[in-house]
């Protein structure tokens, strides 16, 4: 899958995550993450995002995310919605 245009999904409500995705042609995966639980769960959140990208066979993408304590299922859902909206 290819990211054609910028798109976003999610909200800044508690337990949600706000995700923006942008094309990143030939530049690989770039993740900018801000989270209220960055110290405790930053790595885990990034892992979930990378796994989701792998499942969708996305190799080039820029993700800017603001996490409000979302669980993994929400992170997956929001990222997929953003990606679907981006092409």
């Amino acid at each position, binding site marked *: 899958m290819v990211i054609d245009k910028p798109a976003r999904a999610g909200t800044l409500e508690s337990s949600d995550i706000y995700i923006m995705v942008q094309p990143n042609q030939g530049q690989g995966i770039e993740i900018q993450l801000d989270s209220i639980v960055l110290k405790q769960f930053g790595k885990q959140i990034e892992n979930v995002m990378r796994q989701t990208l792998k499942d969708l066979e996305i190799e080039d993408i820029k993700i800017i995310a603001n996490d409000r304590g979302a669980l993994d299922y*929400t992170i997956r859902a929001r990222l997929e919605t953003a990606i679907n909206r981006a092409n």
Partner: protein
Amino acid sequence: MDRLRRTMLFMPGNNPNMIQNAGVLGADSIILDLEDSVSIEEKDAARDLVYKALKYVDFYSCEIVVRINSPSSPFGIKDIQVITKAKPDAFMIPMATEEDMEEICKLVGKIERKEGILENTIKLIPIAETAYSIENISDIISASNRTIAVLLGAEDLTADLEVTRTKEGQEIFYARSRIAHICKTYKIDAIDTPFADVDDFEGLRKDTIRGKGLGMTGKAAINPRQIEIINQVFTPTIDEIEYAQNVIKAMEEAKGKGKGVFSYQGKMVDAPIIHRAETILKKAKAAGVI
């Protein structure tokens, strides 16, 4: 009665915080809503979120129902196509007609087969919320063998009828009675319309009792704070349970003595009374009070 459906709690389908806590609130069924509580721009996001929630969130022993968008809208069919794969217990269909029920039943069956899901796993609950559907509810129910209950939607119904919706609910007396009777003939649940004033608990109790008095078997809730009262109304009381237990005991004693006919508390006990007692005990058991 394979499972209890006293309270069916609506939860907005695009709100992770409410979705992930829904299973602990005491409702028998949770309705993850893709329709009215989700704005047009977020229909895709809610669908994705509900799909993931069905796969990953533990709702404990709650029944999970997904209310899809109207099959005639641009979203309804897509909702079915995506969500069926995550195996909800049932779909709830707004403004359902016989044709909708047939079409959805077929579509769900097709996906079930493709995904290797046991056929007829996923059930359907039509919402009766137009004058047409109240009148044709029998055909709507029988349009699919997946139908397990009907939800009465009084807000849309009264709009359709051009009558005022009141707390007393005289205007839906007929709709409640008709749905209760027809559901009974099909041995499926009749779920009462939600009570809109979420801060009026006395009103809620009265309204629930009114619905139950006409034969409704459960009620939808639009706020978690409504669950306790609805559950209370639809759970057999201690007195009812005691009475039922005594009837059954008297029956067994009579059987032991080889008596065909017997009386309890001076009244002749016949088949309807025994049937009623058995139903009370079944419900009490399912509710975990005995």
